[in-house]
């Protein structure tokens, strides 16, 4: 089989697709917390995507992609049998897996998929694993059955109360604390505000939080430095030093500002793409 070929494709909801991609070298060396860089076409962006699963026997890796901008929308239009143009990795420093005691894995939105391999590795290392999952609504809450099957306890929250607890992941964590649950380490993946407030809370409660950062990246190999983040007052490159960092002292506000830099241009690009995709040509030449 050709490398980068999509072996299977599953639509998880309107905007989220799960891909299994043939890439034996990455499948062989991947570890929890690492990511790959995907590219879909000539002229396309290099998009960092967290590895959700890998199977060295089959030579496949699994990623879950939420369509947000043009590139991710184009990725999600790819079908089984088609291929990504480039798949590079595994990139980043793996999460330190050991027996912490009791750990909480906290996933927000598509971050649930990204925190899943970490939960699995922590479980295999003998931890008691509590999953705290959050999404805007029931539709967007993914991978809950898998998490339930894996973890000692799984708590789901939705912003609108359409499933599980109504509220935020922070509400669920406070409740765990109130119940007397002693959590030795936390691993958080989700939108930046969610990671910021969850880190702040878990730190206050002495839960030793870590967060996986998603700054803008280009090469993903430490070459360009555009993923600079500030951790413990020091500049780190998320692509090689991270993406997972102890999150007590992460400057989330700086991360937020730096990731917003291209938002207007990304919007312009997405709108142009959608317009061209939806445009039905009447010129008769196609």
């Amino acid at each position, binding site marked *: 089989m050709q490398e980068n070929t999509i072996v299977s494709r599953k639509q998880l909801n309107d905007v989220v697709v799960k891909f299994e991609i043939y890439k034996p070298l990455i499948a062989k060396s991947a570890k929890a917390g690492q990511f790959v860089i995907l590219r879909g076409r000539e002229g396309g962006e290099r998009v960092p995507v967290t590895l959700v699963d890998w199977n060295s026997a089959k030579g496949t890796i699994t990623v879950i992609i939420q369509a947000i901008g043009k590139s991710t929308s184009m990725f999600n239009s790819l079908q089984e049998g088609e291929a990504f143009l480039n798949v590079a990795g595994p990139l980043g420093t793996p999460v330190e897996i050991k027996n912490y005691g009791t750990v909480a894995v906290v996933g927000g939105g598509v971050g649930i998929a990204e925190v899943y391999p970490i939960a699995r590795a922590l479980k295999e290392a003998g931890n008691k694993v509590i999953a705290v999952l959050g999404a805007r609504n029931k539709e967007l809450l993914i991978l809950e059955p898998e998490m339930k099957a894996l973890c000692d306890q799984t708590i789901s929250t939705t912003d609108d109360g359409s499933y599980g607890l109504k509220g935020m992941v922070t509400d669920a964590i406070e409740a765990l604390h109130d119940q007397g649950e002693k959590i030795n380490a936390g691993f958080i993946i989700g939108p930046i505000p969610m990671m910021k407030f969850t880190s702040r809370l878990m730190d206050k409660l002495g839960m030793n939080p870590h967060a996986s950062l998603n700054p803008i990246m*280009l090469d993903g190999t430490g070459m360009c430095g*555009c993923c600079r983040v500030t951790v413990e007052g020091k*500049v780190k490159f998320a692509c090689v030093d991270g993406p997972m960092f102890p999150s007590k002292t992460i400057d989330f506000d700086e991360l937020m500002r730096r990731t917003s830099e291209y938002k207007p241009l990304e919007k312009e690009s997405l709108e142009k793409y959608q317009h061209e995709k939806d445009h039905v040509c009447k010129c008769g030449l196609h």
Partner: protein
Amino acid sequence: MPNPSAPRNNGYQVEPEVRKHNFEEVARSFTDEQARAEAQRCLHCKNARCQANCPVGVQIPDFIAYVKEGKIGEAVSKIMETSLLPAICGRVCPQEKHCEGNCVLKEKFGSVNIGMLERYTADTARKQGLLQAPQTAPKTGKKVVCIGSGPSSIAAAAELARAGHEVTVFEALHAFGGVLRYGIPSFRLPREVIDHEIETVKSMGVKFVPDVLVGATQTVQELLKEFDAVYVGSGAGLPTMTGIPGENAVGVYSANEFLTRINLMQAYKFPATDTPIKIGKHVIVLGAGNSAMDAARCAMRLGPDTVTIAYRRSAAEMPARAAEVEHAKEEGVAFEFLLTPKEVIADETGRVSGLKFTRNELGEPDAKGRRRPVEIPGSEFVIPADTLIVAIGQRPNPIIAKTTPELKTTERGVLDMDEQGKTSLPGVYAGGDIIRGGATVLLAMKDGIEAAKRINAYLEGK
């Protein structure tokens, strides 16, 4: 008869007012007549100083003699006996420091324009189908892998293929050429020139594989199980930042990021391409090396009001190739000397709004003989800017050293080598910026060629 007293032809450069609005090549090739006339100026010195001062030993008087006779196929073959990338070298070598800087005509009439003659020869031979990859020796059955596809690895790969080995090149990015691709802009080195030179090496049987980051996708130790020798030419892919307060403000780029967006990702074509780039009205570039000139000239082409290069020493100490400084000036880049950056000032949204400097005077010479900048107390002032590009150098990418504990490094992070160019791990050789920490294309090529010769000797005894 040689005609040394004819004026040196500097070639045609597109007018600054035109070229600063596009990414097309600035310097245009000689016509046949111009090339022949420039070749006529060469005295064909017996102990040619130009050739002796070429790091890769190009047989300069000999190839120029062929150009003079219009024998372009022979001319290019003569160059390619020692250098396989003539179209690239002719464009990006610092000739004034090597061949042209040592031409006997330099003082009296101006050096022969060897750089332009080299690229004329390479481009013309390519167009006329006269450029042929060198013959390769019978297969040895030995396998060698080159890490990285920049100038050092390409040169090593070609040399190894020439000796009959089976050669694979692993590149971490999606496109080949390393710094030629992500660092050097198309107005200095058109993308198709890189493509052509790589095609030549491919035609010698070298296999190029993208998306393999050695140290992550596979380790050096894993490669040693599959290959008989390894050449590490992974370059200086780690940007140096200033470390001054505020450097993570929005609108602060490393030169690597800025140049990679433009050159590798073609962000200047956005939204036809998908990677964006933003430029403000007032751009400051820190540093005065080739990357700084490239960044400043790229920035200029994105249409800001001003681009200013700020350098901590004086004009005389600028490390950039002379022609690049000249071109930058012609295109309207301003130069401010003897300034040390102190702090990035940001506005209330976190975006850079200015840069605080102190003024320097020149003190005693440092180890390299360049006079050291010394701060003048109380000289602080701010230059307003909304884009800052930090181009003060690169260090070796640490990923291979980090994942290969057996490879010793120096405190600067460069691979430690013995006199034979071997690393501390048997069968592993290295060259280019990974051992130099940020030098030139030409020196990287020289390392690649020399390491390949040592690998050939090593494999013969294996």
